[in-house]
């Protein structure tokens, strides 16, 4: 077996490398032969229902658990053996972690800043909307505020890799968008992000690539668009024409793959800006398109198709 040695700080194209990792608790297999590669500088999402093994997987990545089988390399380091060195470069936000009740936000933040050689500036607190809470005790914070402080502490060391487990759970829509902006900013300065989420919109908006995890296995890895595309091939446009027309009007368009008739409806399957090119082509022939409906596949559809169940907003999978 060849082991590549790299020193911390050297640039490697891979930020996280998970090879055939399995982890079981008693009879339950939490992670089942998972392999993943996260590139430097990308936002990588792990999506799946509760109990799919996402948290166990990232706990193996950040060195909190030892896999039963397989290997993990993070920034060229072994997460268990080089734990302290790794944590100087990797910021982690956990679901099951709390902070001392009797301390103020600024006291906790300053303490965590002191743990790192080149910590982030104080304005990280503002960016996450906690500026007015600086002097508040941890125990007096709302669930969403605690969550945002937890994200701030994961980012305070200017990590090369940030691993965030359900970072926007419990946040209101505005706070969620603010957090997304912070994440985009962190990536803009070159950091890699590994996000665990059951929130599809978050994965679609933020992630460069997404791994869909179900029952401890990786079902698919692709861009959000790629995964959505896999679900239905491409998008479908339905309409009712005002008059009969020559089908070649549409089949000749480069965007169109297929034209079908469903009763009075015409269904055009294709990609790109289907609505305007189809409407324009029809208008030229003096035909109006009524009741136009664009059906576009989402990550949600991909999830349904790949795993066979729906994912509701609480992250519980339901069989369909």
């Amino acid at each position, binding site marked *: 077996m060849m082991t590549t040695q790299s020193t911390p700080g050297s640039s490697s194209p891979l930020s996280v490398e998970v090879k055939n990792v399995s982890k079981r608790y008693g009879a339950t297999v939490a992670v089942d032969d998972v392999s993943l590669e996260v590139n430097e500088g990308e936002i990588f999402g792990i999506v799946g229902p509760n109990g799919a093994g996402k948290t166990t997987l990232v706990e193996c990545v950040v060195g909190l658990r030892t896999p039963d089988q397989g290997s993990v390399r993070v920034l060229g380091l072994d997460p268990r053996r080089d734990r*302290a060195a790794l944590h100087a470069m990797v910021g982690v936000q956990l679901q099951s*972690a709390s902070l001392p009740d009797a301390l103020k936000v600024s006291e906790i933040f300053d303490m965590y800043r002191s743990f790192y050689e080149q910590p982030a500036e104080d304005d990280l607190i503002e960016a996450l909307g906690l500026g007015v809470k600086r002097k508040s005790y941890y125990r007096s914070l709302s669930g969403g505020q605690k969550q945002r402080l937890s994200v701030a502490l994961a980012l305070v060391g200017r990590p090369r890799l940030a691993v965030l487990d359900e970072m926007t759970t419990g946040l209101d829509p505005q706070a969620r968008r603010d957090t997304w902006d912070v994440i985009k900013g962190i990536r803009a300065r070159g950091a890699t992000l590994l996000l665990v989420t059951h929130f599809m919109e978050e994965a679609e908006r933020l992630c460069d690539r997404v791994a869909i995890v179900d029952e401890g296995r990786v079902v698919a890895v692709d861009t959000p668009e790629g995964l959505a595309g896999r679900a239905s091939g491409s998008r479908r446009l339905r309409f009712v024409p005002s008059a009969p027309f020559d089908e070649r009007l549409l089949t000749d368009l480069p965007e169109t793959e297929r034209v079908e008739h469903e009763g009075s409806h015409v269904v055009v399957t294709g990609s790109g800006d289907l609505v305007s090119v189809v409407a324009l082509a029809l208008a030229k022939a003096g035909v109006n398109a009524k009741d136009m409906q664009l059906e576009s596949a989402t990550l949600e559809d991909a999830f349904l198709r790949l795993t066979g169940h729906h994912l509701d907003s609480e992250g519980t999978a339901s069989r369909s």
Partner: protein
Amino acid sequence: MSAPTPPVRAKIPRAAFGQLLRNEMRSAIREPRGLILGLVLPLVLLVVFGSFAKFQAPLPALGGLTRFDLYVPILISFALAAIGLWSLPSHLATYREYGILRRLSTTPIPPAWLLAAQLVVNLCIAVVALALLVTLSTAVFGYRAVGGIDSITGFLLATLLSVGALFAMGFVIAAIAPSGTSAYVIGALTFFPLMFFAGLWIPRATMSPVLQDISNYTPLGASVQAVQTSLGGTFPPGWELLVLAGYAVVFGSLAVRVFRWE
């Protein structure tokens, strides 16, 4: 297959421990359970006992000592036991229960630093409690502590070994307790029976020979004896210090083995 490489070490800024300690001090002052049990309570008892004329009368049954004379070493052991057996474990178990140790283990800082900071804070409370108890009892309530080299070294050794034994037992309680609340309960259930053998309710001198023998082998019985002897001006006998050292070693090594971070 390449040869195993040594673990890569992290550079941790030196100021980190200071920050950790500062926040532990703040927590100890804002949630003053440890201060109340280990400092305020024994001081209040000292003032109450010291103010009773009945407690200040010499008794022939006690060899000319007053009841108050007996209570000074008992309250010194009380303070150390309340901090070590009661306050320390409930703090540590709470830190584990709420994932505070777990959160810290995802930073470059070893979680053991938090335990060390807790230890320092509790040692500070213990030192302040001892200083106030000794000063107040001698300066205000006429307790005659004999100075001199035997007395002072004996007292320092007796209290140091008591701290070692009681804090080690506290770490074991923190290790076996599933939550902060249960650590508090186990702490209380350990504290009160042991305080009985220290003579908090009936003086050791009036205990039956069997109870006295048992008391000699309990950590607080040995602690009270050693503190009392040294304050009386003589270096405490070896067995008392040996009992305390034994508890410190046995529970210390047990704590290292059974302590859980999560």
